[in-house]
């Protein structure tokens, strides 16, 4: 299964992505991949820094996903941190997670910034045997 794809025909000014995962945890890992790959070349990101014990709450899984992506944006802007992957644990509607990645350095090739996750066309869907997130980033 494809991890994620750009749906560029559906959005002119910004970036629409579709991200997939067979499980919730795989979906979140692929969201990290899609997020970081838009900003830089993820293969160049080192797993040299760990941010542990992050917590996200939401009324449902869709809100947890939304809050999770917003956390990635926050860490990028405030800690200059880009994640390569993550370790996740669900507890009711709470997501407890750790992120592995690195601080942004001058030698990291930058493609574009992600400034916000919009609610425009945002959707988390459970298909027969996989999860799919559709989202538009303001870039």
């Amino acid at each position, binding site marked *: 299964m494809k991890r994620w794809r*750009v749906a*560029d*025909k559906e*959005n*002119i*000014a*910004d*970036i629409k992505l579709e991200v997939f995962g067979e499980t919730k945890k795989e979906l979140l890992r692929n969201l990290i991949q899609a997020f970081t790959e838009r*900003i830089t070349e993820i293969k160049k990101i080192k797993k040299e820094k760990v941010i542990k014990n992050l917590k996200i709450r939401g009324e449902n899984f869709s809100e947890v996903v939304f809050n999770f992506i*917003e956390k990635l*944006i*926050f860490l*990028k*802007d*405030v800690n*200059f941190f880009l994640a390569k992957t993550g370790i996740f644990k669900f507890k009711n509607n709470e997501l407890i997670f750790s992120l592995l990645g690195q601080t*942004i*350095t001058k030698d*990291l*090739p*930058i*493609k*574009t*910034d992600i*400034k*916000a*996750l*919009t*609610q*425009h066309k945002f959707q988390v869907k459970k298909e027969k045997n996989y999860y799919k997130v559709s989202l*538009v980033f*303001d*870039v």
Partner: protein
Amino acid sequence: MKINNFELVKKDEAQWLLKKDYSGEDIYVFALENLLQQIEEDVFIQARNVAQLPGLAGPVCLMPDAHSGYGAPIGTVFAMKEEEGYVVPGAVGYDINCGMRLIITNLTFEEVSPFLEKLVNFLFEYIPAGVGRRGFLKINKNELKKIAEEGVNYLVKEKGIGWKEDIEKIEEKGEILGADFSCVSYEAIERGINQLATLGSGNHYLEVQKVEEIFDEKQAKKLGVFAKNQITIMIHCGSRGFGHQICSDYLRIFEKHLGDYRLKINDRQLACLPINSTYGRQYLKAMACAANFAFVNREAITYQVRKAFEKIFTKNVSNLGLNLVYDVAHNIAKKEIHSGKNVLIHRKGATRSYPNQPVIIGGSMETGSYLLLGTESALKKSYGSTAHGSGRTMSRAKAKKMIHGQKLWQKMKKEGIYVKSASFSGLAEEAGFAYKNISDVVKSIDKAGLSKPIAYFKPLGNIKG
């Protein structure tokens, strides 16, 4: 005329009325026919959603550079009744007070040309662009509060950064009143502290330009534009992560409270609440903080521009000019009076265009930009508003497929435009062919009577994220 399944009735050479197949306010499109035909179907769909919002005080206006956004199209203007109307954060946009600033110099193209690359490289060092770079201005939370609540006044008078004369030449004198820092989230504060005095990325830029054409010499001279080949600087940026976070925060709060007012909207990005509700008021106070942050951001960048020019030309800045022509927002909501009514104007990708007020419209980095003046007829037709830029016609992914950033860089260099970019990928996304023709946009707003062209500037050097 039929465009993308929507019927439009010609009211004037550059004014069209969307035929109603919905119940709501009228939608006027200000564009010459060639630009009208370039407007995507989504723009009309989104504008129709806007026109059905409760509390509108009159028609919805679309500018000639309109393109689809989230909720409201970029290039939308509408008025909400101040007493019974609603505030719509999604119709201000994420980058609150994204705006334009124009600075003039005493220098000519001949004087600057030999130093152009060095100057652009210096500007790139002095003004961080792209991702992961901090600005020169190190501030604490208390200083951020002052910046957010007092705007450019605080920066100039208390921090000694920027010129007193600049304040008079900024929309609302660089301070939107009513800002209240207590309405700003922890997340927005943390993002804001790091990003002051930075340019950002996407379509944001700082450009060194030369005056290429003057359309109205008398008015141009009044604004300090005195001759062809005069060097100018244009800045396009906004409130960075601070404003983005404020928009995100309030969109979610608004969506959760829609039910309190039994509101049904066609697009969750158009979530709105009464202007006079608790959260409506809080949003406007937080939005004013972000707007002030953006004015300060552009003033702090100007401070760095002046330093870079001093360094390169080894002259005191007072001998180089570097005076501000104007600074104007194009993503904002403001309480104004139109046709005798108190209203809350939402301008998303649209510039205020009051009579004789300078209007700055930036084109793509390959094509150039315009200085215009606002008009009386803009007050009557579009709530004193006009266009803001070129408007995209192509997705970022498609632009990147059509040209590699490095190739574009070389092509632009051959054409006499030296670019220093944090990213070749980002550069390709902003290629000139991905935008509408800026001159067509200006012709449309001129013909529609929304603003009057004064001068045209050609890019020479550009820094971007």
